[in-house]
């Protein structure tokens, strides 16, 4: 096909325009602003970063993000994988998959409300309207302030909401990959006397290795930026803040654009390894084309 020198750029122009105004230039600008004061007027060097790495609220946010990273990723990937393998053995697979995948369709805001209701807390003498505390009380316990008790119960309660939303995603991907394992391979191992656990460990896991890597990466990238769930359910109170919420608060409540920018840059730095992984994977795919 005849292609003039300018033709490709004509097709690319709208995209390039939008990408530079909403991603490239703002990203560079945020890096620049992170070295300035709250109103972007005075140069402060690395002071915002110093503050971001030493203030108590930021340290708590880092700790919480780390907790999210470990617990959320382990559960979504682990439970997703287990469900994919188990569901392959039942006939009503499709129904269960839909049920577990459904939370993916709704917003974190709605999910936050659904779970705030599940977690709702009343003093011991009153009727519990939250299911979890009703169960606790029925079993003879004292009602628990799920979103209040720091530092573990409330953070884990928030993480549970994320797990509820994203396990279905992991499950669906693992399920597709699991069905790609040749059935003869699994059967041969069973005939040789391997039990289900050995089959899982020595055939399923090695076969799904690259899928597990992709899914884990996706979960980690998501979890580093987690914002909505915390914003809606606790807005960071009782030490539940995460890094993305701190950034929003510095920007919106305290109007400290310098510190907010520095926090955003820290998020970006945490994600850059995954940008590299993405680009590498892409190049490997291209080499195969």
């Amino acid at each position: 096909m005849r292609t003039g020198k300018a033709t490709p750029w004509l097709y690319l122009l709208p995209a390039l325009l939008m990408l530079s105004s909403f991603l490239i230039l703002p990203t560079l600008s945020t890096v620049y602003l992170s070295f300035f004061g709250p109103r972007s007027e005075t140069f402060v060097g690395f002071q915002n970063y110093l503050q971001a790495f030493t203030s108590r609220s930021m340290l708590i946010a880092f700790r919480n993000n780390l907790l999210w990273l470990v617990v959320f990723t382990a559960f979504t990937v682990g439970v997703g994988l287990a469900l994919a393998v188990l569901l392959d053995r039942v006939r009503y697979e499709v129904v269960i998959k839909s049920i577990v995948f459904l939370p993916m369709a709704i917003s974190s805001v709605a999910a936050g409300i659904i779970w705030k209701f599940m977690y709702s807390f009343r003093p011991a003498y009153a009727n519990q309207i939250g299911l979890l505390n009703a169960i606790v009380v029925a079993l003879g316990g004292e009602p628990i302030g799920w979103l209040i008790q720091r530092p573990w119960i409330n953070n884990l309660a928030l993480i549970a909401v994320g797990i509820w939303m994203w396990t279905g995603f992991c499950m669906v991907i693992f399920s597709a990959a699991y069905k790609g394992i040749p059935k003869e391979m699994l059967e041969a191992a069973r005939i040789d006397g391997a039990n289900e656990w050995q089959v899982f460990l020595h055939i399923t896991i090695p076969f799904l290795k690259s899928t597990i890597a992709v899914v884990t990466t996706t979960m980690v990238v998501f979890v580093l930026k987690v914002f909505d769930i915390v914003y809606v359910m606790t807005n960071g109170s009782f030490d539940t803040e995460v890094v993305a919420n701190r950034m929003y608060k510095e920007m919106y409540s305290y109007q400290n654009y310098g510190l907010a920018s520095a926090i955003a840059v820290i998020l970006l730095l945490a994600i850059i390894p995954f940008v590299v992984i993405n680009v590498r994977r892409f190049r490997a795919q291209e080499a195969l084309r």
Partner: protein
Amino acid sequence: MRKQAWFKRLMVHLVVIGVALVWLTPSVGLLVSSFRPKQELIASGWWTVLRRPFDPTQYTLANYQRVLFQEGLGRAFLNSFLITIPSTLIPLTIASLAAYALAWMNFSGRQVLLMAVVGMIVIPLQMTLIPVLRMFRVLGLSGTFPAVWLAHTGYGLPLMIYLLRNFFGALPRELFESAVIDGASHFTAFTKLLLPLSVPVLASVAIFQFLWVWNDLLVALVYLGGYSNVAPLTLKLALLAGSRGQDWHLLTAAAFVSMVVPMIVFFSLQRYFVRGILAGALKG
């Protein structure tokens, strides 16, 4: 040995059904509660209706009436559509054009451009909020629909371009060569040949973007925050959760209103939906 296998199978069923129940219960609780009168909702747990589930006197539509017509959810519902539809169609058009060039035209810098696009997929939105907000203020766009249309277009493009380009690039080369022999221009090849062939993938990409925008809170919060007449459902819902945190009769109904459209998409277009979500999960 036989008995053991039977027992193992039973365990699989129990685990799987148990997980499904745990996953389903929170949503059922929300749905049931949204139809219960305020007084009963705060007096007893939602599961108490299960004692006589078909007794209509324990249900009411009052909560929905209240949130839709008095709490402004009706307006927010409309706003969500007004925000989401252009925020899906504009980037879809722009991305198709760019993906066509990246898949079927030869020019220097193509590989670099592609890699840049792939890298941009996971840039956190947080990196862009402050400069873009300032730009909108200068242009007088903050608190308007065009602001979120433009922002969602910019944020949605890298992933859309990447997915569409992969699909376009996988189409057989002969198809385009035969079009050339017929003397077709690029524009004709794009509109008459490529787009009709790509309907399924366009649908998947569009559904992903539609749901992403529909469920988005951050972009709306930053660029539309404080302007309640343009707020979409998510923003309104978050405000409601902040201001009326204990009014469960309103919160449950409002949350369900915000879930209706994604649920319809989920159940009616599940095939495209799953493909779209899976392809799009890495987005910033």
